[in-house]
Every structure is written in structure tokens, then in C-alpha cells.
């Protein structure tokens, strides 16, 4: 009986080990490798004078979309364009004069703060500088 038990144990451990050796590579395979992201710190986004007042546009910041807005007063603001609710890309509504997400009717003010609808957090703000009429958008942590 002892021998039987020992053999059962050996067999059980063998099966478990085998399962592990089969499943581990499969599960690892399903996880995509992290693609190193080019470290973009700032980008040029066209000329300030040609950017229409009271409008916004989506610009590429590395692999991330950023929304660049020129307010009615002529100031530039930039925020991450990814809605903090469910990952949609927001837009500037010139009738409401603030940022809006079409997916679930989320609203953000011109400081990126969630003011209505389901978004739980504000949009991350990017820094905008105008150098010789050229708009330069840079990462928040790079400021200063």
C-alpha cells in the first residue's frame, strides 16, 4: 500500500509538473512583449498664428494622442486626449467651449478637470510654449 501511495504521489507530481511546463510557455506567449517607446519629450505642433481660435486638434505625441486647444482668449492648452473614463479620444466642442468625450458624454473644462458625466479623473495636462510663433508641446514632468 505504501508503494502504491508513493507511486500515486510520483505520478501526480509528474502530471502537475508536466501541466506547468505546458501552460507556462503558453501563458507567457499570450502576454505581448513591451515595445520600447521612443522617449518623446516635446513636439512641434505647427504655427500659433495659423491655429484657429476656439478650436482644438488631436496631435501625435509619440504613440499617444494629445489634444491641443486654442481658447477664445487665444491661449494654448494641451492635455492627454485619452478620456479617463473608458479610453476614448476626446474632442474640443467650440459650442460648449470645453472638452467633450463622445463615447459616454463626459465633459472636462479648459483646465482638463472632469466636470460632468462619468469620467473619474482629470486629463493629464501638457505644457505648451510658443517660441517664435511655433507651438511646442512638452511632457508635464519635463517642465521647468
Amino acid at each position, binding site marked *: 500500500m505504501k508503494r502504491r501511495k508513493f507511486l500515486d504521489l510520483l505520478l501526480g507530481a509528474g502530471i502537475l509538473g508536466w501541466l506547468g511546463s505546458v501552460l507556462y510557455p503558453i501563458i507567457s506567449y499570450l502576454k505581448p512583449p513591451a515595445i520600447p517607446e521612443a522617449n518623446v519629450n516635446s513636439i512641434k505642433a505647427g504655427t500659433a498664428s495659423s491655429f484657429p481660435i476656439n478650436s482644438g486638434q488631436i496631435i501625435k505625441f509619440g504613440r499617444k494622442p494629445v489634444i491641443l486647444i486654442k481658447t477664445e482668449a487665444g491661449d494654448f492648452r494641451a492635455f492627454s486626449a485619452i478620456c479617463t473614463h473608458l*479610453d476614448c*479620444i476626446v474632442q474640443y466642442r467650440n459650442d460648449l467651449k470645453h472638452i467633450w*468625450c463622445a*463615447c459616454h458624454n463626459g465633459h472636462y473644462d479648459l483646465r482638463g478637470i472632469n466636470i460632468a458625466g462619468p469620467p473619474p479623473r482629470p486629463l493629464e495636462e501638457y505644457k505648451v510654449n510658443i517660441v517664435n510663433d511655433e507651438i511646442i508641446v512638452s511632457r508635464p514632468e519635463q517642465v521647468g
Partner: protein
Amino acid sequence: MIQLIKKSYQWLDERFHLTPLIEFMRHKQVPVHKHSIWYYMGGVTLFLFIIQVFTGILLLLYYQPGVDSGYESVRFLMTKVSFGWLIRSIHSWSANLFIFFIFIHMFSTFFTRAYRKPRELSWLSGFFLLLLAMGFGFSGYLLPWNELAFFATKVGTDIAGAVPLIGEAIKIVLRGGEDVTGATLSRFYAFHVALIPALFTIVLGLHLLFIQRQGMHEPDYFENLPKEKKRTIPFFPNFLLRDALLWLLVLNILLYLAVFFPWELGEKADPFSSAPEGIRPEWYFMFMFQTLKLLPAHVLFIEGEVFGVLFFTVAALVWLLVPFWELKFSGKGKTRPMKIVGIVVILYIIALTILGYIL
């Protein structure tokens, strides 16, 4: 010709003993009563699944997954390939009818309480088929790589990411990375044409096996009738022929829809453009989508979307386990509590779906 068929049958029968199978089908009886119509809903669903398989294989001949080829290949299929538009339109419409009839089939099973012992596993397998069908819909929706599908997929996979603890891992595995990209398209393609069909075929096989083994469910009053008062018809050929007639009808409706309301392709997805106004998922996700839309940013101490996901997860579990917690009769003449549960669920789904389309 008939001689040849008879000979082949004899040849096969000699080797595989087919006669008992035919006898089984011939002796199988289907009850006839005022709720018999619901017996046909599962069959219609099966028929639509078969159409999906056929049209899906045809679409595969032209479809090329990829950010630079997915949309273009579908456009080519719809504009250049003879009847390409029709095949795609049938596939899309049939997918919608397929889900629609699954719902009808499920609720008719619910209201006739056919899920009770000994048919618990039929209910469970049916529920998994519904989930897989939704997976079919969700994964197939992305394949043309158009704007609506792109954002629907972003939202849908982000919802999966809201699941506590394992959500982020699920999201990354589903997307094939942090964002919805070409990698997501490759994965969804694999899910849609290989993984889900394989799983679906297995579960469907079990589901059908259970039904064949146990026979049709009889409503309470019918079951209590004396044997000589129970009206039945043979499954083969009577029931099967009626089935076939209904399939023909559904096929006609399907073709009418596919021809007169051809499925659109829309704009190509652009990961760097704002979500368009009026974005919405397929109608069968609408009640969940609308619930998420109406939830405030925070419910109690958790984020609204997490609350929504938890709510629907719990609701799905409760629904899955219906055969095991069923509320029983309380006295005669009263409305059955399960009937109320079912009606509340249907009203909720319908109300939020309508809200989703008008708000």
C-alpha cells in the same frame, strides 16, 4: 438512383449500425401544446449559426487582417467582388438575428422554466453559448477596422480592464499591448475565426446532445395530463419539416434585410482622431453601455465603471445559476416570482436599450 442510395445505406449500416439511430429519431416525440412555438427558437438559432459559418468562410477568402489591409480588403470585397457586398451584409445581419434569437430562445426557456432539473446543464451550456456569441460579435465587429469598431473595441477592452486585480492583465492580453493597434486586430481575428468557433462547436455539441438525450421539456400542465391526452408529433420527419419551413422563412427575412439594408463600412479607423459623435456599440451591448453612461463618476467609494462591471458580473452569475436558486411558488393563484424576475430583466434591457438610442 434510389437503388444506389439504398445500397450505400446498407453498406454503412453494416459497418456502423445506423438503424438504431434512425429508430431513435423516429420514436422521439415532440409535445404539441399552446407553447410549442418556443420549441423552434433553438433550431432557428442553429440555422443562423450555420449561415454564419458558411458566409464567414466565404469572407475569409478575401479578408486580410492588418491596419493597412483590413479596411481596404473589406472595401475591395464590397465594391469589386461579385456579390461581395451581399455576403458581408448577410454575415452581419445574420449575426444580429443570431443573437436576437438566442435571447428569444433563452427567455422562452426561462419563462417556461425548462431550466429545472434535469435540464440544468442545458441552461448552463446555453448561457456559455450566449457569451461566446457575444464574443463572436465583439471580435468580428473590429475586423473591418472602421472608426466605430475601433472606439467600440477601445471601450470594450477598457471595461475588461476595470475588473479588479486581473483586469489589467486581461486587457493587455486582449489588446496585444497597451493600446488598440494592429496587434489587437491580429488577436481578434484569431479569436473570431479560430478560438471562438472551436469552443462554440464543442459547447454547441454538448447542448444538442443534452436535448437529444432528454427530449423536449414539457410545461407543468402538459406533464400532468393523462398519457392519452398528450398530443405529440414525431421528431422525424414531422418536427424537422416544420423546422425547415421556419428556417426558410427566416432565410427570406434575412435576405430581405441584407439586400434592402446593406451593411455599411463607414470610415477607416484613425487612432489619432476624436471619437465621433453618436458612437455606440451593437444593440445587444447597448443596455450595458447605457448603464455605464448613466453611472456617475463614483458610486460610494468605487469608480463608476468598476461598479458597473461588478454589477453586470454579479448579474450574469445570478442568471447563470438560475436553475439552482429558483424562487418557488407561494400559494395558488399568485403570479410566479420567477415570472416577475424575468419581466423585470426584460424591461430593464428594453428600457436601457431604447434610452441608448434616443439619448
